[in-house]
């Protein structure tokens, strides 16, 4: 049995179309009439994405300005170029993904979960390539401090990002939350790369990268809670 035969079977099994109750349709139309005012459609995806990336970048730079630009000062030119261009590119992808999550019927290139994996794996691969100091001094104490700082700045970025996104409508709040958490993590990760001068491979690979999945998971949790409201 081929696909065409299955198509035929589906078509023949489909029930005859039934008329909808005209009165019900009229009631629906009447119910929306009192609040039928012109609305302004959402801006283009790229406009919203620029806004979101700018928010993350501003939060990261503001955080580094407050805590010090020790990290970027310690990096050489190649490290700066690779790390910050990768952060920018992935933040752009995350912002576009998040905007699509907030628009019903938006085009998905990758799912929010896949995007989180790409971001985590991409940044981990880049860090593994660039940082070759394999000492693990103050692994937990310094690491937890960095993770907490990164998450704090991710949280700070999430608040203004919500202002950009509040007009949207998430058809899947969990995926939207995951995408929002992933995007917000770039504010935290960016801030850590600007500020943190601990270039031990284990520290950067574990604690800096952890900001991304932890922030993503926190976003997904918020989305999960919101769907019950």
């Amino acid at each position, binding site marked *: 049995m081929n696909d065409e035969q299955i198509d035929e079977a*589906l078509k023949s099994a489909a*029930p005859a179309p039934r*008329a909808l*109750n005209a009165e*019900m349709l009229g009631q*629906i139309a009447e119910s929306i009439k009192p609040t039928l005012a012109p609305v302004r459609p959402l801006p283009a995806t790229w406009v919203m994405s620029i806004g979101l990336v700018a928010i993350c970048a501003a939060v990261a730079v503001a955080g580094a300005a407050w805590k010090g630009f020790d990290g970027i000062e310690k990096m050489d030119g190649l490290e700066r170029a690779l790390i910050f261009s990768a952060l920018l590119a992935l933040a752009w992808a995350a912002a576009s993904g998040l905007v699509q999550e907030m628009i019903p*019927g938006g085009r998905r290139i990758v799912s929010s979960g896949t995007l989180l994996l790409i971001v985590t794996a991409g940044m981990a691969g880049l860090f593994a390539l660039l940082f070759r100091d394999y000492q693990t001094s103050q692994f937990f104490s310094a690491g937890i401090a960095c993770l907490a700082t990164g998450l704090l700045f991710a949280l700070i970025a999430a608040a203004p990002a919500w202002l950009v996104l509040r007009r949207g*409508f998430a*058809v899947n709040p969990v995926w939207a939350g995951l995408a929002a958490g992933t995007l917000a993590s770039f504010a935290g990760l960016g801030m850590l790369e600007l500020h943190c001068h601990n270039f031990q491979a284990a520290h950067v690979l574990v604690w800096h990268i952890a900001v991304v999945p932890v922030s993503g998971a926190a976003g997904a949790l918020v989305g999960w809670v919101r769907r*019950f409201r």
Partner: protein
Amino acid sequence: MQKIFLNPEFLSWQCNFSKFAGELESTQGLREAGVVHQDCNNHFMPADSNLDTLMARYQLGDFDAATALIETASPQLHRFFLAQLYSRTEADDLLQETWLRIHRVRHTYRPGEPMLPWAYAIARRVRVDHFRKTARTTARHEDVEDMSTIAGPTLVDANRSDGLAAMLALLSDGEREVVEMLKVAGLSLEEVARATSCTVGSVKQKAHRAYKKLRVTLIAAERNRAGKGRSEGLS
């Protein structure tokens, strides 16, 4: 008042109807909104508008366009709920809820984008919310009432003898949804991907899995029929 019946197949090329979309009882709203017009032989012809332009006009606060949009898109959305194994009454309620939701978030539609996947995406959300609400209600009452007496969202209306529903009942929710949108509503892969918030690859995968299951079921049914025919012939 004379009722004018409109054949949706006739309009499908222009208005993006499915040929299973259902008969519309009145064309009043459609004529007012310019979706159809009457020619000199009193035949209704599709005008240059379609669902996307109606939606754009609805965003501008045009009540006639909103009415026409409700009349044209409702049969497909209603059918979507029916295909998800809801009863007709539940499908009616969900359709009304969907339009209220569409009205609330109509600014999220972008002029120029396809309207149907956008509306289906909202309808899906309404369906999921309804499912959760029913599940919660069921859980709350399960101590005091017999589970079998509570109408769940996956229970088919007892009066509904729908061959399609029986075929699709074998599939998972996601597969059923994809097959219904692709093969019954006539959406493209890209449109289904948009409506279900998936990638095109994921839709293809679900359709492939669904067809695999349907193939096995249909072959088994065919064998059963052939076996019955042989035994009847022998007797």
